[in-house]
């Protein structure tokens, strides 16, 4: 994720990352917890957290590929270098349904601050 899913994202790299995460998931099925103790078992907590990280990584991959624009910390300089308020002024929602990420969108509620292009 560090290499393929930073601020600057490229379609090919994002798809590649999807495969890497899937491969890691396979390995995670066989995860080993060496520490069998009951006190401050950070081996166990790390193994549990790794599962959550993989969930999150999978969600990021799906959402990142689908957002075909550049916005904030999601920049696609090669294919979609500008912000697209018309199509993507919306929240990305990803739900895990039967172990598969399911993508949906929700509108953004505008309050005090109106959207405008960032210039600096």
């Amino acid at each position, binding site marked *: 994720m560090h290499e393929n899913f930073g601020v600057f994202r490229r379609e090919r790299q994002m798809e590649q990352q999807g495969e890497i995460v899937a491969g890691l998931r396979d390995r995670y099925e066989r995860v080993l*917890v060496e520490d069998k103790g009951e006190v*401050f078992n950070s081996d166990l907590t790390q193994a549990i957290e790794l599962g959550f990280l993989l969930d999150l990584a999978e969600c990021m991959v799906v959402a990142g590929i689908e957002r075909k624009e550049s916005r904030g910390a999601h920049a696609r300089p090669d294919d979609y270098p500008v912000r697209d308020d018309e199509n993507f002024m919306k929240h990305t929602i990803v739900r895990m349904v039967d172990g598969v990420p399911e993508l949906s969108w929700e509108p953004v509620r505008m309050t005090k601050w109106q959207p405008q292009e960032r210039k600096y």
Partner: protein
Amino acid sequence: MQVALKIWRYDSSSGERALKEYEIEAPEWATLLDCLDIVKDQHDGSLAYRKSCRMMICGSCGMRMDGAAVLACKTRMYDIAQSGHVPVISAMGNLPIRKDLVVDMDPFWAKFNAMKPWLQPGYERPEDGREYRISQERMNVIHKEALCINCGCCVSECNAMESDPEFLGPQALAKGMRFVGDPRDAAKIERLEQYNSEHGIWDCTRCYFCNQRCPKGVDPRDAIAKLGAESVVEGIDRDMGAKHAKWFVRSSETTGWLREEELIPKTQGYVSAIKQIKFGASLVKHGKVRPIPFPHTAKDVNEARNLRKLVREQDRQGALGHVQGEHALAKLDHGHAGESLEEIYAREGAAPRPWLPTLEEPAAEPPSPGKKTGPPSAGPGIQEEPKA
């Protein structure tokens, strides 16, 4: 590089305790925390230690290396590994061990909470309705205390807490000073009363270990000194420690030197001093004090009196005066009186100039990672020991 570590393992559920040695391959930039990660990932997954930020800001990875408290993430291993020394890693002191390098922080947090570490409301809002602003001068008083990350290294090393576990301790008292010295806090007197009671500031033994081991330069002992100064200014001086300190001032401004003959009665009171008459007699016998307690005045007493006058007139009493003194001492120490940095580093016996990437290096000697971590005095003293 090859790194060897000895780690004290402990399991509180079984009571098993063992010193185990690990040999690992680590990158040259590795810190102690990086090395522990390698041990856990590749050698023994059951090793327990706390960590989070890896960059000296969360205060999770306090532990002992060769018996001295350090932040694992701040301790570079290059020089130690090169020297061939095998450091012993153990959990922090003064707190019960739960597992391996993890201590029970509950007693620590209980004292922290007893400080009521938040601003007690009651200050007046500025007339212009904007935020309350603090002058730089007042900010300087609590600047160091505000740097504390609650890692517990000072508590681990505290000698006073070793003999009295109820002692509030360096971390809590430094936190207390952070609020006592804040002009917005409305509970200054209540706080000082609390810190002046039993197990409070005057129980500190002034060993300065907390100053030495603090990885963030908080200098908790200085905070305790500031609390003492503030207490005396506010008239909270019933403790023997306060009376003792006050007598030093009183005797230097009246006679220009310390009147030791009266130190015990002035500190403990005359009644209890009578019980120490035997001790007093032996002092006289060994020529430590004069037999007749009539004070004589030093020749240049007016210098001492003028100094005291200066402090009073400029209102430099309490913590403010303490910080002023620190600044003056720092200037003497680091020689900023008109000297350039080049001149300072060229002085005889000066510490080597820290290596910076922009400086041109002599080609023969590549910089070691250890040199980048700052002047030798800034790091925990123990890092230098393996070489000795």
